[in-house]
């Protein structure tokens, strides 16, 4: 074979390996390969390399926590809630409708149905998921969706974005200032995450509704050096997680429950 023809063949051989040749071109390439050992060798090297790349190099699928975080942040960025529950308590509809263009839907029937599907607070991998979410949020560059030390800013921010109204409290004077909030995703549902500071530490307080369930006193847990306290109060589930010591976290929870 003459060199000119082989040079012209190179990209066509590659295109054949990549499945990009039309039948007529493929036939022309095949005819050349039949008679040209050098080009046939090129083709087999390309095929072998392609096989090795696909077999041996990792495909980095997105971790579950990233899938969840993306969904939560997109949900937070979306303009309006999906479900408007007709069963929303009248008092809540009345109290917010005139204030907020997007009527928050109360913790109604739809939410109660979702709550039935939730794991029990002690169950499964939820502690791991809570810690993973907290750790992710600590990473540099991770954004808070709403940065404010004013509970009267943080609370309405959630109201347009969640199907429940998380209670928002500030403990600035007690040394646990509210620093903001974000939407997160736990147990296959969007939850509110309130962020509090304590010296250089952060506390994430995750809140979601568990309507019609009895109050439960705080239970502590820890994972990988992070302390957790969870409790149920007034039909809401709370998980506090931080790298603070267990005692200080318990102080925070005591304040919260008493306020």
């Amino acid at each position: 074979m003459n060199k000119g023809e082989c040079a012209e063949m190179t990209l066509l051989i590659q295109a054949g390996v990549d499945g990009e040749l039309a039948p007529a071109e493929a036939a022309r390439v095949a005819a050349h390969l039949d008679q040209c050992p050098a080009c046939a060798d090129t083709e087999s090297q390309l095929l072998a390399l392609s096989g090795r790349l696909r077999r041996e190099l990792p495909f980095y699928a997105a971790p579950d926590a990233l899938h969840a975080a993306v969904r939560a942040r997109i949900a937070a960025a979306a303009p309006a809630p999906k479900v408007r529950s007709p069963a929303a308590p009248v008092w809540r509809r009345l109290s917010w409708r005139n204030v907020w263009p997007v009527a928050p839907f109360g913790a109604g029937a739809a939410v109660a149905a979702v709550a039935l599907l939730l794991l029990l607070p002690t169950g499964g991998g939820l502690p791991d998921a809570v810690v993973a979410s907290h750790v992710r949020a600590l990473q540099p560059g991770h954004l808070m969706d709403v940065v404010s030390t004013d509970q009267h800013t943080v609370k309405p921010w959630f109201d347009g974005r969640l199907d429940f109204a998380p209670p928002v409290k500030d403990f600035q004077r007690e040394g646990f200032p509210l620093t903001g909030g974000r939407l997160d995703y736990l147990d296959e549902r969007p939850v509110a995450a309130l962020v509090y500071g304590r010296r250089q530490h952060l506390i994430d307080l995750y809140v979601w509704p568990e309507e019609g369930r009895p109050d439960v006193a705080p239970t502590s847990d820890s994972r990988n050096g992070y302390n957790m306290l969870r409790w149920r109060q007034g039909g809401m589930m709370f998980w506090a997680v931080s790298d603070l010591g267990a005692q200080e976290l318990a102080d925070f929870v005591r304040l919260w429950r008493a306020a």
Partner: protein
Amino acid sequence: MTGPGLTEFERVVLPHLDAAHNLARWLVADATLAEDIVQDAALRAFSYFSSYRGGDAKAWLLRIVRNLAYTALDARRRAGTTSLDDGTTADGEDHPAMQVPDAADDPEASLARREGFARLDRALATLPADLRECLVLRELEELSYKEVAQVTGVPVGTVMSRLWRARQALMQSGTEGRAP
């Protein structure tokens, strides 16, 4: 939590989140940065979604990821926070060179322990960024030439020649898959 746009976005774009993460991870060679890029890319894609007019959603998302990845690498390089050595592409453009992923401290890369992987991985890592991205898009993301062109913003002919140069480099570095 959703308008009609969100449901559609979840159906059309979110299935490509794994592909987005894989590309980001290969482009920046940093697990944390890759995740941040994917989050930003998804949010951006969502905010641009009203201007998305159908077509190839995967290539559309990967283009956003790719551009954010280079912006992030560039910012990091300018901040001088890493030891990235400045690479020059085969086209003579200035591109951030990539770090060789350290498979040893990366639990995701258990494959690294497989014979031959480290060598192939390393050879891929030392390619100029524009060649490497073409190869990753073609071989790992399994995009067509046309889609690779769409993601990288160059003509199909350029994609073909970059792919060839990338493969030549790998074959010449002795990592080609000839039967032992």
